């Protein structure tokens, strides 16, 4: 539309002919420009009849956007990492079921099925969470890189770790849920809170974590692999490793229901799964794991290959349904217990580290009892797993009134206030106990 104003008549004529041939394909994506750019260029070179329109939104905002415009949809493709986001859209019947031809693409990556069994969305690349660190920062602070999640809970990393909030980043949510499923509800939350006690910050955007590590604002970050790879490829003094417990999950793409240009959308998805399309993923600015095993022949030295290295992402079996059932509830719990109360949590965990250091010198059993009691307070959860999966309770966090007669019991604000009071008191008490123990 704006072309009519900005371009000359000649360009206008060209644009119109292009539009007649294939048309505009509107893509809603959470992927950064550095990734969409090369893919767009490759696609438009291979299919000049199409014009890809990229609209960048955070995963959560993208889902919200598609929900908002559903009445008069203008988007053709939703393209993002987190499978759960696709689950949400699928649940709202906002995705279209299409047939995609995919030759030489396996069914799974790691332990995770590549495509939606019902055919609403498709994996096009693999990604897994891991730990990224800044070499200069670690050297200056005399630290070694952490290899496993629980290493990050060590006293030496206090105040050096960064992570994004699961409510802000779909892939972060996946990591949180992976640990909850892999270690069990209580053990999983306990680990998260002990790691979070070492956080420097909880970033608002998922890119905030690699950014913080790249600049050296904090030393270690919990990030998705390609952020680590592409940062390293861009020349930053950083590195990345997968811990044992990680979910290797596909990044996905789907056609939006009632897409104005469904043909174009399908052509784009098909193209991304061709060997040609897959090899674009190895661009230094992208660095995603291709899902076509053949493409790894072109990969640079040291680039992980999950189809050969079976240790990556094999140890967890991710239950998408379970995750979807409590998606918002888990996000809300993480925000209430960690994001919004990070200062209290960090203070409590810091005090406990000191108390433990003191105990290792004194061996005072009384102190040990206090320390255990304090850890128990930090570990305590306001609800158990059964309640998290209770559809009625989880429904409070997802309710979307369709009819005026829809009725939901308690209000989210009331529950969150109760949780908040619970954790604030526990953290304060834990700090008190830890200080007491440290004084013994």
């Amino acid at each position, binding site marked *: 539309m704006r072309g009519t104003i*900005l371009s000359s008549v000649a360009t206008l004529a060209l644009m119109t002919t292009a539009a007649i041939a294939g048309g505009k394909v509107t893509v809603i994506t959470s992927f950064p420009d550095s990734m969409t750019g090369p893919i767009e260029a490759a696609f438009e070179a291979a299919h000049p009849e199409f014009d890809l329109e990229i609209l960048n939104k955070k995963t959560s905002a993208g889902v919200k956007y598609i929900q908002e415009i559903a009445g008069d949809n203008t988007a053709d493709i939703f393209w993002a990492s987190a499978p759960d986001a696709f689950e949400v859209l699928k649940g709202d019947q906002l995705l279209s079921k299409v047939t995609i031809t995919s030759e030489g693409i396996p069914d799974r990556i790691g332990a995770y099925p590549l495509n939606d069994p019902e055919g609403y969305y498709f994996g096009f690349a693999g990604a897994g969470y891991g730990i990224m660190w800044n070499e200069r920062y670690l050297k200056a602070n005399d630290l070694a890189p952490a290899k496993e999640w629980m290493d990050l809970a060590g006293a030496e990393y206090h105040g050096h770790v960064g992570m994004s909030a699961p409510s802000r980043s779909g892939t972060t949510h996946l990591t949180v849920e992976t640990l909850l499923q892999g270690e069990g509800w209580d053990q999983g939350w306990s680990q998260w809170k002990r790691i979070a006690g070492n956080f420097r910050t909880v970033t608002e955007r998922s890119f905030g974590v690699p950014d913080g590590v790249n600049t050296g604002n904090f030393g270690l970050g919990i990030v998705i692999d390609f952020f680590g790879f592409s940062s390293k490829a861009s020349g930053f003094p950083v590195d990345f490793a997968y811990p044992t417990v990680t979910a290797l999950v596909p990044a996905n793409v789907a056609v939006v229901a009632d897409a104005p240009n469904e043909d174009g959308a399908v052509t784009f998805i098909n193209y991304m799964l061709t060997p040609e399309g897959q090899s674009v993923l190895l661009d230094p600015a992208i660095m995603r794991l291709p899902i076509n095993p053949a493409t790894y022949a072109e990969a640079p030295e040291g680039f992980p290959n999950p189809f050969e290295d079976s240790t990556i992402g094999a140890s967890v079996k991710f239950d998408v349904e379970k995750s979807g059932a409590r998606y918002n509830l888990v996000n809300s719990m993480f925000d209430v217990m960690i994001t919004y109360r990070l200062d209290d949590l960090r203070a409590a965990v810091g005090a406990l580290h000191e108390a433990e250091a003191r105990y290792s010198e004194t061996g005072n059993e009384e102190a040990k009892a206090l320390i255990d009691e304090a850890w128990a307070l930090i570990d305590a959860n306001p609800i158990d797993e059964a309640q998290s999966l209770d559809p009625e309770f989880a429904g409070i966090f997802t309710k979307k009134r369709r009819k005026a007669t829809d009725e939901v019991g308690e209000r989210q604000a009331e529950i969150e206030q109760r949780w908040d009071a619970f954790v604030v008191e526990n953290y304060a008490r834990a700090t008190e106990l830890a200080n007491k123990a440290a004084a013994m």
Partner: protein
Amino acid sequence: MSSSSSSSGAQAAGLSDRVPNWLVPNLSGLHIAAVLIALLLIGLLLVPVAQVMIVAFQDPATGAATLQNFVDFFGTSLFRESFWNSFYVSAMSVVVATAIALPLAYITTRFHFSGSILIQSLGFIPLIMPPFVGAVAMQLIFGRNGTVNLLLRDWFGISIPFMEGLNGVILVQSIHYFPFILINLSASLRNIDRSMEEAAQNLGSHGMRLFRRIVFPLAMPGYIAGAALVFIKVFDDLGTPLLLNVNNMLAPQAFLRISSIGISDPMGYVISVILVVFSILSLWASFLFMRGKDYATVQKGGGGMAKRSLKPLEKTLAYGTVILILLVVLSPHLGLLLLSFGTIWSFAPLPDGYTLQNYITMWEGSKTFILNTVLYAGIAATLDVIIGTAIAYIVLRTGIFGRKALDYLATAALAVPGVVLGIGYLRTFHQIDVPFTGEPMASWWVIIALALMIRRLPYALRACTAALQQVSLALEEAAESLGATKRRTIQKVVIPLMTGGILAGFVTSFATAAVELSATIMLVSSNNDAPLAYGIYLFMQTPSGRGAGAALGIVAVIVVAIGTIASQIIIERDKKLKASGDAH
């Protein structure tokens, strides 16, 4: 206040349709203009904001009207804390911004000080960089492991938590918004009659006491106007706390809650209402305070402004202060400049190496952004000065019913956070299709320009009002008595005399619209439609793009700085033109 007045405007519009017989004959061109502007403001400001606010008053379970959500808000300790934090950060930002602006304003207006115009122009620069870009650069310089702290740690083994938590927000916001105080305070100081100060000196007062008891109180109206703006802007600002990962404040809480997947939690909307109401209250309080305190006019027979020469020691001290302050307030720009020319900058006082590559990357990928920005900001600023001039004329020179309401309504846009406006536009214009193309209006690029227009209207309106106030009514009456019609008078006498002020308003609107992000981030429906600030935001989301984003930021700053200096020159020339008549 504004809601009652606007409804009267709506009524007038409705009535004119229904009973044209007795109303239309009385409708002059100005009446029609007033009605059109009222409709525009209602459609583009009131309705969209109401669309957002109404959710706050609905029971999420039943949809019935309720105040329960507000009870929940104040019953939640996190929200009370956020409220307090927002208040604290805003108040502290005013304090720090004052500490920055006061010496600059005082030194440049009250003394013969070479470079005053340069300093005043440089002092304006921070305003024209999106705060989120400033925050990135400030992290690199003042962050925990930024240049300053790395050096401090190396040399003295200490570090200063400039950017930790709320401190960071306060620092970034103060540096970004202090020009509001600088501009208003300087104008007030310039307007203090020389005899006001001399009378006090004559009675034995001097130095700090003179400043505290006479000069500052007289400059108070300008100071309060600036301080209120800073307070409101900081209170509403979203980008900076988000970028600094500070969540326990109202605006981020609203954004986080409104934009999260699937949550139709009314709390985000409750916070929006509170933000809007609190901003309007602060504006109103500052208006109340300033009423009847219009000291700023030079009195009859007065001597104009008193400028004093500095003694050598004072001069050294003054230059030292000014240079230190400028270094601090321009540090985001220095940081951005380094970043744009740097290769890798990680855990080091300075980048590892320097390159031009970022500018090449930027140039290849951002032509659309720049063109879009010029287009959107151009449309927005043009409409702003047209509407601003019309409103100013209607308010100052006519007795049209509800004219004050028009003024309040246009000014109320100040109090609407960009995010709230953005969400409101999405909700309101989604159902409406653009004629001929059939696209929903919400994803039409024109809506971005309109949102920018509404956001910048208060600034343009103030500039136009000030310009019109300086045009003596007698000049108009002279034209009319010579037989010119109202329309001809406005065209041939009023507008030409207002040119300087209108141009200044245009440039300010254009410059600030060019770097606006908060409303546009909600409304951009395709990267091809994205303006510059959004482009910088996109670049900054990738490890390899930071340098290019910084380069684009530098281009933006330079473009806007040229515009600003141009407007300064226009204003100065205009002033001289007007002053040449009454030189002794």
